[in-house]
């Protein structure tokens, strides 16, 4: 593991947040498998160190933009299970009053500008958020999460160009999990992804996305520099998703082998690695860790139960929030 200077609580928090993400996803997957969740969803399991390593380097007032695979970012930026499960099930108490669902989930009050169902769709939004920061002098930094597949979208190059010309405080964080849907990254990305950012004069870094401390350390440095106006930056985080592209993608041997999956899970799991390191360093005992895990599991269970019972939005909500300042758009 990379070295880092944190106090004990920081480490515990990172561990906790990673486990919370994994636990959230396990429950979401269960909800899907038991046909209790409407629609499909994309699991973040395996990539926890990315969202947590990055978000733990941010202030609440800093902003992020998220993706279709957004539960991890949402948890990492400070969201609660209850409102998240309510959203996942389309209930009124969800963060988006059930109107967004998995692909638009976000705790907006913590600076999450939204998950996005358009691949690459939030690249402009993140850059614009950094624009606001510069224009109004708020000092906020924005992190734009996206996948390796999203690097194929032209929008990225357009906004990188402007971010670089204007020194915007934005960090483009590419979660390279080796696949976009059912296709390997090397089949859809020519040349080098870091070189693409560098060609715009943007400092680019590649980092082990399964090492939460490495991710966190690099992000801390870049965030501090971005706050001083030295941005933008690019980070490519090498990671892996454990589930299929979405929860329904069960038979996936035609595009990736079980052995490959097993290798990542057994040998590079971000939670197992970090847990081992914490115990080794005497930051927490096995017992303390197990207790934390159990508490998180219980929290999730309670939240799921709550959400399953929670009420749907009233049908009169259907034409609310179409326009700010218009109670019912179709009245």
């Amino acid at each position, binding site marked *: 593991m990379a070295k880092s200077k944190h106090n004990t609580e920081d480490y515990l928090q990172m561990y906790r947040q990673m486990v919370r993400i994994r636990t959230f996803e396990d429950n979401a997957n269960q909800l899907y498998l038991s046909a209790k969740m409407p629609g499909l969803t994309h699991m973040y399991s395996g990539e926890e160190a990315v969202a947590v390593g990055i978000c733990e380097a941010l202030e609440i007032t800093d902003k992020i933009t998220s993706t279709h695979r957004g539960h991890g970012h949402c948890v990492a930026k400070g969201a609660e299970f209850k409102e998240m499960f309510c959203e996942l099930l389309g209930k009124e108490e969800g963060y988006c009053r059930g109107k*967004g669902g998995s692909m638009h989930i976000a705790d907006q009050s913590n600076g999450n500008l939204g998950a996005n169902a358009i691949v690459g769709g939030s690249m402009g939004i993140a850059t614009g958020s950094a624009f606001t920061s510069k224009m109004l002098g708020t000092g906020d930094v924005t992190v734009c999460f996206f996948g390796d597949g999203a690097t*194929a979208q032209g929008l990225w190059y357009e906004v990188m160009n402007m971010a670089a010309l204007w020194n915007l405080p934005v960090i483009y964080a590419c979660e390279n999990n080796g696949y976009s849907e059912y296709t390997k990254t090397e089949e859809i990305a020519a040349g080098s992804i870091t070189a693409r950012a560098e060609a715009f004069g943007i400092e680019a870094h590649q980092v082990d996305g399964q090492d939460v401390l490495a991710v966190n350390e690099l992000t801390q440095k870049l965030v501090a520099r971005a706050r001083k106006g030295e941005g933008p930056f690019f980070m490519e985080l090498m990671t892996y998703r454990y589930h299929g592209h979405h929860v329904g993608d069960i038979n996936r041997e035609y595009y990736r082998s079980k052995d490959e999956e097993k290798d990542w899970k057994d040998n590079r799991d971000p939670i197992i690695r970090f847990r081992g390191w914490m115990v080794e360093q005497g930051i927490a005992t096995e017992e303390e860790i197990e207790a934390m895990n159990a508490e998180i599991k219980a929290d999730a269970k309670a939240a799921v139960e709550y959400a399953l019972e929670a009420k*749907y939005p009233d049908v009169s909500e*259907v034409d609310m929030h179409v326009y700010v300042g218009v109670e019912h758009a179709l009245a």
Partner: protein
Amino acid sequence: MRQITLSQAVNEALAEEMRRDETVFIIGEDVAEAGTPFKVLAGLVEEFGTSRVVDTPIAEPGFMGIAVGAAMTGTRPVVDLMFGDFIYLIMDQLCNQAAKTHYMSGGKLKVPLVLRTNLGATRRSAAQHSQSLHALVAHIPGLKVAMPSSAYEAKGLMKTAIRDDNPVVIFEDKLMYNDKAPVPEEEYLIPFGEANIKREGTDITLIGTSSMVQVCEKAAEILAGEGISAEVIDPRTIVPLDEATLLKSARKTSRVIVVDEGHQSYGVTGEIASRINEKAFYHLDAPVLRMGAMDVPVPFSPALEDITVPTPEGVAENARRLMSGEMIHAA
């Protein structure tokens, strides 16, 4: 006659045309081994190879542009756009380039391509994966727009589209991919601009597009039980539009409802209703009624989503009101 699914019907149409004409190829995301997320293209790459079933990066404007250039130089691309909602991303290539090339070149160049995409809500996919955006392209001269209402139409219209020398956009309903219908083994094509009278009737005309044809048929069934004889018409292509058949029916029944899954305002229903009003005005006993999707982004929550689209009960209810003369007072 054998029954096959809409998905199989599209697959057969593509396979037959690719066998017939070596210049036909498919291009889009995960079209090859994966056969698209909806599995519509399963088996095609095995028969035609990766040079004619071409997987692309996630770059819709890019591969749409490539298809336009390929079509201009002697091939017949079938572009696979995974969700109809992504059409916004390719509007420039579709509407500024493909649609206008023949005209701007004074008839010298042509762009024989097919854009295959989909429409339809109630899949719990939220606002960015549930839109029915066919009205946008129907507004642009130079494009043809087909809207199959069953496996039979899906096959016949696709084959016609591929042989057409113009850019054609086909919207398939995502929810109908597994619906079966009788489809002949023998080859057939369905000409563009010929509406299909799905059911004859004398009291009221129900015009539906895509899956709304089924909705109208079910409404007609309900109405039949009440002694109201409804004629159901499927225009099959909205550009070109078979005005003559629609007008004939309107003049006969003197009452018309137009049902479409796109947003109602500034959409397809307004055009069809206006043409009937303009040309059959003095035959009408009541105003032409329109039923589109609600003018709201599609909500995720099942409690809200289901009420945004026309239903058989809703159509039947409006038909009853029209028959009873109740609307008279409103107008």
